């Protein structure tokens, strides 16, 4: 990928020794210490002796994995800095074990313009973890005219999405899929919710919405778009990624497309694997997300699809909103919840600890699979943990029990249902480009 002149944050001259942990990456698991010099992994072996002057990071009892990669973070800059900035979002990411975030383009102005994308990319290189802007599929995310996909591609953009809005026009989607076939590694990522079927809805349409009188967004709003899109992909070719899959019906469609050999990937959020529409009975807009929290059967289908590999990745859909916007009735509050700081811990607490995912499955879904989808493997994200690779590493203590309090949040927003809830498993250290940006749960920059 062509590099603009701005230098990345590096760790020239520093030597780190990650000692005592168990390494897990796409090649398997092994007991090993990891030596990092000048931003690059130099040795991976059991019982390394730290060289003089090396900073030792204690990894006793912990997993050492390739830095996590989030395909789906709303960092709000430019335009929404009262909710989050690239810097605070990247700090939240680092605290959550992420070395790379894909920043969603629904900013103000949106990321449909080379100048705006270049500015975000530049800020992203200086941030506590790496931030890679996604680009809009259509101008102004209006769903009618294609954005300058090639120009954005040349700035390094690989993920194109109108997230927050669905590319509802099948002709526009077809054009985007066909055009990006000429851009190797590019992927069209769809927010699959039919705007007419989801119209004016604020939660999942089901027994709970019926009871609560909150207008609903039915599962068919998602599955109808997924079914149509996969038909289009079958016709055009091109790479298609389904953002935040939430409905059980989408899983069968994905499986069939995969079996037919289509280049289709999918992600799910931690909250869609853990929470259900019953949470909305509190009328607390913390639980308002698009797509909405669905029924227990949908939730369980998400976890099963992750375990079966039908859904490739776990992505946060980290969506900060300043507190004042959540001091409203459910129907008037904006959708979205925080995710970066709690993603791995929530997945561990609810999916890995109860044995529904193996540790390796969880790390795959949060690191090397999303890295491959977003074209970030070449940037050194997603491992493997091997000599010569850039040092993006996360150290995760699976035994730690902790609570994230409001005072522990990196940004100005606090819209997380996982605040003050006991979680099992906590990110201990995060190394980005050879720099220890989180040490012993504390952000160092």
């Amino acid at each position, binding site marked *: 990928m062509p590099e603009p002149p701005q230098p990345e944050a590096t760790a020239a001259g520093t030597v780190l020794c990650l000692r005592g942990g168990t390494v897990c990456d796409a090649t398997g698991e092994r007991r090993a210490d990891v030596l990092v010099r000048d931003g690059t992994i130099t040795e991976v072996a059991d019982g390394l002796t730290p060289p003089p002057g090396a900073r030792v990071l204690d990894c006793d009892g912990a997993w050492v994995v390739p830095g996590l990669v989030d395909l789906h973070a709303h960092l709000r800059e430019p335009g929404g800095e009262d909710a989050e900035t690239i810097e605070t979002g990247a700090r939240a990411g680092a605290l959550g074990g992420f070395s790379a975030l894909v920043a969603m383009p629904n900013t103000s102005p949106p990321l449909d313009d080379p100048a705006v994308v270049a500015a975000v990319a530049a800020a992203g290189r200086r941030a506590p973890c790496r931030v890679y802007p996604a680009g809009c599929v259509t101008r102004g995310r209006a769903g009618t005219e294609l954005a300058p996909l090639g120009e954005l591609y040349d700035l390094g953009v690989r993920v194109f999405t109108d997230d927050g809005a669905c590319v509802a026009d099948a002709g526009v989607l077809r054009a985007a899929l066909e055009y990006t076939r000429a851009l190797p590694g590019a992927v069209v990522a769809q927010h699959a919710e039919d705007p007419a079927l989801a*119209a*004016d809805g604020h939660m999942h*349409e*089901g*027994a709970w*919405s*019926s*009871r*609560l*009188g*909150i*207008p*609903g967004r*039915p599962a068919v709003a998602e599955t109808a778009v997924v079914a149509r899109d996969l038909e289009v992909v079958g016709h055009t070719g091109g790479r298609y990624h389904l953002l935040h899959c939430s409905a059980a019906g989408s899983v069968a469609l994905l499986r069939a497309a995969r079996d037919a050999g289509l280049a289709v990937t999918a992600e799910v959020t931690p909250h869609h694997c853990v929470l259900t529409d019953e949470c909305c009975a*509190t*009328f*607390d807009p913390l639980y308002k997300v698009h797509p909405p929290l669905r029924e227990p059967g949908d939730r369980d289908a998400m976890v099963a699809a992750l375990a079966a590999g039908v859904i490739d990745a776990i992505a946060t859909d980290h969506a900060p909103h300043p507190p*004042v*916007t959540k*001091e*409203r*009735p*459910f*129907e*008037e509050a904006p959708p979205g919840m925080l995710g970066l700081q709690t993603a791995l811990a929530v997945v561990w607490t609810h999916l890995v600890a109860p044995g529904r995912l193996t540790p390796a499955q969880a790390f795959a879904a949060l690191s090397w699979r999303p890295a491959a989808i977003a074209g970030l493997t070449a940037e050194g994200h997603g491992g493997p943990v091997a000599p010569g690779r850039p040092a993006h590493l996360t150290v995760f203590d699976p035994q730690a029990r902790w609570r994230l309090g409001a005072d522990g949040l990196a940004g100005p927003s606090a819209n997380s249902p996982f605040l003050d809830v006991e979680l099992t498993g906590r990110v201990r250290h995060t190394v980005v480009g050879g720099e220890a940006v989180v040490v012993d749960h504390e952000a160092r920059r």
Partner: protein
Amino acid sequence: MTGMRHLLGITGLDRPAIECYLDDAAAFWEVLGRDIPKVPALRGRTVVTLFLEDSTRTRLSFETAARRLSADTMSFQARGSSVAKGESLLDTVRTIEALGVDALVVRHPAAGAPHRIAGWVDAAVVNGGDGRHEHPTQALLDCFTLRRHLGTGLDGCRIGIIGDVAHSRVARSGVRAFSALGAEVTLIAPPTLLPERVETWPARVTHDLDAELAELDVAYVLRVQRERDAARRLPPLHEYYARYGLTEARAARMKPHAVVMHPGPMIRGLEVATTVADGPRSLVRDQVRAGVAVRMAVLFRLLGSPAGGDDA
């Protein structure tokens, strides 16, 4: 029943709790018939009506109830939502509470707004209608009206709720209250005006009004909510009236003693014929007077005892 702090919905009230409100309402109904229909029970207390959606009828009914109990009243109204005014609902409510308020009657276009407010204030909160969710005092006054009219309880009474159930907070509260008191409720509407997963409601469902008419003791006619998205869900309105309107001919086919109710405001000629709305079967006027007695009972129960106790 004692110690209830808010009235946010019929949800959460069991039969004895509902009956307790109705019994108290009977005592206040008697007060309303006196030469001076006013008692000093809530002297020195302040009741604020916070109506963020237009509804003159309900607001006047609550304010009349508060004044008949000798409470002071204040009225806070805004067109549109608090969002439109740029102030958060929390800020609005905190401002009002700072004036010194014992009870807050909330009408809001969004479901659950009174529940949110109840979490923010010390005052008692009464749900005066929230979005499509609940309208508990309407349900109580309907039960009260029916109980008075029947002279007995509602056990076995066959109530048909006709019309736009999907968008109706009156229906959501009414079905819960009627069925809790032992009535048999049938929802009568075209499929597009029925709520999703209607099989989870404690009611029978039919799309055929004519087949059901002769069975009903009560025809409860809902307003067609034209300001919401009913237009998209319905063919032209004359077709609706032809199939679901309570016409004079249909009213004539009801049981001799069957009655007609409507939560108001009525759209005559769309849901119900004028001759039916004003006819001998109509309990509409009784419903309005019952509204004041029921709301007196609610305010009296929430404010007439020492603070403290369980949440609603």
